[in-house]
């Protein structure tokens, strides 16, 4: 019915071009007897009734790609991705920085100094290995446990603290969102939002947008992180479909850490994880050991290369384990044994695995380890102390950025109403008086504006 679209940048796979022929050509295919006349499939006809329930021909599960064993030794036949010492050290230092930061912020949440926090314990290799495989200007759409990507890209500790404390230096959300909802156009990291999986179809749109920007076409991809729980949302299905059907260079990275809050992955899906779904969408897919930073680096590099080359979605499932609680509002020992977590930490620690590899290459030593740990602890503590004393944005920011352009009358009126109430009760109602002191300008800018208006 339509002329096939001319997509200069897209190299269709053989499978797809043959699909295009079946939809675009009215003639009977040459091998009608073997392939039938199925309008929406190039499926071979068979007289044998056979059901199947695996994407692997032998019925096995999709294998997990690994480079390093649990003591940091390359597996036999494994191809260690090309990295030099400086690059390896940068990865390692960021892998250690992540839990250092997590420990401090987790603890200060426990002391009531920030309202909420989510750690990435156990997932350091998945996050840093993938971050290191990307171009620093690939557009990232994250779920919430991927602050390590920002650290890799040079997002400062001050910026992390500013967002978590919601002080006046917070550019991520001007104190409007909960902690860990980071964002930075400069670091090509779209602002995180709480609703799960909404970023997945958005990522396909970002991927398509990149093909429409001449300077980025064929050079950048959209990168979308999600957990295995989020992959149960309808938006996952939508995003996979869109990125594969409308050619959109979008790299999907599923962190399969075994739990969505309390729900184990066995209650999340009955199939072979998230990776088994990729081929159903016609998508290049790989499963990787998410605790092996070199495997993640190698797999994501190759996934990204295919994503750029094919200009369509590619799926990576990283198998890892959520060592920490889901968030500071969760006590995970209510649904899993403390011993199980301890065992995991000991048997398969992604940081230790990489450290042993680094040491075997002569790239790292016990002395350096001690120095690094001390330095990072000091840096993190210093950034927190500095941020802790800072005031919040001005109170008037509560009403900004709802709309761009002309401010609607109702927002104007409601701000004026609050100003009236502040004038009336601001000094006499203690909860407001105490709270006002925490804002830059103590709300005076609102009162002042209204007087001049």
């Amino acid at each position, binding site marked *: 019915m339509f002329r096939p679209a001319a997509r200069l940048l897209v190299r269709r796979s053989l499978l797809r071009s043959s699909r295009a022929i079946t939809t675009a050509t009215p003639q009977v295919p040459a091998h009608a007897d073997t392939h039938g006349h199925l309008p929406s499939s190039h499926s071979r006809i068979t007289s044998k009734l056979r059901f199947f329930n695996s994407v692997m021909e032998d019925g096995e599960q999709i294998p997990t790609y690994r480079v390093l064993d649990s003591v940091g030794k390359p597996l036999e036949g494994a191809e260690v991705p090309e990295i030099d010492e400086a690059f390896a050290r940068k990865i390692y230092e960021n892998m250690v920085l992540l839990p250092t930061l997590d420990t401090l912020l987790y603890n200060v949440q426990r002391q009531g100094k920030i309202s909420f926090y989510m750690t990435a314990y156990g997932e350091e290799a998945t996050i840093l290995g993938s971050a290191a495989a990307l171009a620093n200007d690939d557009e990232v759409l994250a779920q919430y446990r991927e602050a390590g990507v920002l650290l890799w890209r040079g997002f400062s500790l001050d910026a992390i603290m500013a967002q978590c404390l919601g002080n006046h230096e917070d550019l*991520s*959300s001007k104190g409007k969102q909960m902690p860990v909802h980071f964002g930075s156009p400069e670091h090509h990291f779209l602002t995180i939002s709480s609703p799960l999986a909404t970023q997945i179809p*958005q990522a396909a*749109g970002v991927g398509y947008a990149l093909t*429409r920007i001449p300077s980025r076409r064929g050079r950048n991809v959209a990168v979308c992180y999600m957990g295995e729980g989020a992959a149960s949302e309808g*938006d996952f299905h939508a995003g996979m479909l869109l990125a594969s059907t409308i050619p959109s260079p979008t790299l999907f990275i599923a962190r399969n850490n075994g739990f969505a809050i309390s729900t184990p992955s066995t209650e999340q899906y009955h199939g072979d994880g998230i990776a088994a779904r990729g081929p159903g969408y016609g998508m290049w897919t790989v499963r990787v050991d998410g605790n092996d930073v070199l495997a993640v680096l190698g797999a994501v590099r190759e996934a990204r290369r295919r994503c750029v080359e094919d200009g369509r979605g590619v799926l990576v499932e990283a198998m890892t384990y959520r060592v920490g609680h889901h968030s500071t509002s969760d006590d995970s020992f209510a649904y899993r044994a403390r011993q199980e977590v301890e065992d995991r930490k000991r048997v398969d620690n992604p940081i230790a695995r990489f450290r042993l590899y680094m040491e075997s290459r002569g790239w790292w030593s016990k002395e350096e380890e001690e120095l690094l740990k001390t330095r990072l602890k000091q840096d993190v503590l210093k950034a927190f102390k500095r941020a802790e004393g800072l005031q919040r944005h001005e109170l008037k920011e509560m009403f900004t950025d709802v709309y761009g352009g002309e401010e609607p009358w109702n927002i104007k009126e409601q701000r004026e109403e609050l100003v009236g109430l502040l004038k009336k009760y601001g000094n006499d109602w203690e909860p407001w008086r105490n709270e006002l002191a925490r804002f830059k300008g103590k709300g005076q800018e609102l009162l002042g504006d209204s007087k001049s208006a």
Partner: protein
Amino acid sequence: MNTFQAVRDALSIALLKDDTAVIFGEDIAFGGVFRCTMGLAEEFGRERVFNTPLTEQGIVGFGIGLAAMGQTAIAEIQFADYIYPAFDQLVNEAAKFRYRSGGQFDVGGLTVRCPTMSVGHGGLYHSQSPEGFFMGAAGLKVVIPRSPIQAKGLLLASIRDPNPVIFMEPKVLYRSAVEQVPVDDFELPLSRADILKPGSDLTLLSWGTPLYHCETALHMLSAPPPSLEPHIPQSLRSANIELIDLKTILPWDVESVVESVKKTGRLVIVHEAGMTAGVGAEIGAVVQDKCFLKLDAPVKRITGWDTPVGLQFEKFYIPDSIRILDGILETLKY
């Protein structure tokens, strides 16, 4: 031009003047089920005008992604009745994108078009007017045109507005409303109501399809057909009714409406969606707050009933001219 041609004309201008603009949705490449995108794929190429898989949450999410990168994304939802799968993307994501990022990101380039309102035989899922559900979604704009000129000017303004806009096109008007539409590029301002007919005795406020029923009701009031003459007292036939088209549901033009009601002292609101928590409830509450001392009668709402739109019952469901006429009479007599 009729309305679908005016929409198509606006889309063509948007694509012509803005290289980043793309149009996508279900079945739009061959021209769309209402012909609003006829020939655009041929003219501008399938990279700019393309079909999506059948997934409304995906369509809006995809549009948000495009718009977040500074592109102009014009998405189509085939019927307003099917916008709900995208409710999360619209309300939690599009509406809050700018606010939650402290103004660092926005999806102002997103416009979601969808056919809306009754069509005579649409039943439950081809008749709905869901504008009220979006009225509380601060950050979104909701726009509904009444005619081809309005459709073109308001659609171009919506596409270029720095905020995400839901543009609802009354589908019964696609072919039935025809007028001379300027072929050049023009915009009509959002959040500005139109006074279609000035008056001093009562304000009649509506948008989209029911405006035509309002017009008919006003004719019936001043020159009743013989069968209705006994129902319409001679004294009320010369009543001077002010008819207003609200055009933008969010943020709505409070100034025009309040000014009108302060002058007339009476307000009748007409919409097709059900009454409870509909747009009329919001406007009625604001008007009683701002015009309390000027009101000579309660604010009257003439709306669809609080039921789904039953197929064979539509004639008795929609707020048609006789119901509007009765509402005007009752409010004038109060």
